[in-house]
């Protein structure tokens, strides 16, 4: 059973980059450096780089990403940081479709009333432009 025929593409493994989705570190990236059992892993940010402390965390609190870095079992902060910087994971994640979606969600959540007004006006303008063009094309046959 080769990896290419597997239904699953993201695995809990040493070096897997994951995003914390619950708790005070929500939204931050971290690297799995050891597996405790089927429900918990040991994770390292490191704290100066991504903001996640070295800790045991429940897998339920992680969202696995597509990225894996090469780190040895139980790697410490320095090694993890070097590996993340070498592959430029943080930026690659931001440029990935998943990362982009998260930024959009974040921007939407942080909108104030004026931003929502601007959004409404922009949507109206776009819809109007489409409708005008469509009517034009209908008229011309």
């Amino acid at each position, binding site marked *: 059973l080769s990896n290419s025929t597997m239904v*699953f593409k993201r695995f*809990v493994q040493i070096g897997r980059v994951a995003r914390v989705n*619950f708790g005070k570190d929500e939204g931050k990236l971290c690297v799995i450096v050891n597996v*405790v*059992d089927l429900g918990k892993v*040991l994770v390292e940010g490191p704290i100066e780089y991504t903001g996640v402390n*070295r800790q*045991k965390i429940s897998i339920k609190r992680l969202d696995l990403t597509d990225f894996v870095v090469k780190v040895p079992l*139980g790697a410490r902060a320095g090694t993890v940081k070097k590996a993340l910087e070498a592959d430029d994971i943080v930026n690659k994640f931001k440029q990935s479709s998943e990362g982009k979606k998260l930024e959009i969600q974040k921007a939407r959540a942080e909108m104030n009333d004026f931003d929502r007004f601007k959004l409404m006006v922009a949507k109206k303008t776009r819809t109007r432009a489409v409708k005008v063009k469509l009517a034009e094309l209908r008229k011309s046959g």
Partner: protein
Amino acid sequence: PELQYRQYQVVGRKIPTESDPTPPMYRLKVFAQDEVFAKSRFWYYMNRLRKVKKSVGEVLRVIEIKEKSPNQVKNYGIWIRYDSRSGTHNMYKEARGTSLNGAIKEIYEEMGSRHRARHSVVQIVKTDIIPAAECRRDNTTQFHDSKIAFPLKHRLPRSNKKSHKSTFKA
């Protein structure tokens, strides 16, 4: 608040008398939620093992033993003595975790679930950190693999905000 086991070291002795001015001191390492229970267990064992009662003894010191390496995954071997419905037995169990207190909590829960043994009938005889090569349980050794990889097959959607939480998920 979740049940949390802490490890205490309780040191005590019989109160010195004229006939016995320097009685031997005994130390007990016990897992308990608080110092009160730790001292209680100290007298439980002193009664049974050393014929010293709380009324003629004194506790000299209770110290909490903290985890030395809370960010290192270890294999814990725990030796247990427990009373079942028909007798008392010894057991050896393994738990994998980052702290001994966490492992002990797992063991108590396991004893309750697998053997219906309540906390009061379970005695932790000995605990030790076992190197990977000496672990005896498949459940522990299956994680001794630097190339370990498993997918998350049955992920249930979970809310990260209390306001989005619901009792029933479609």
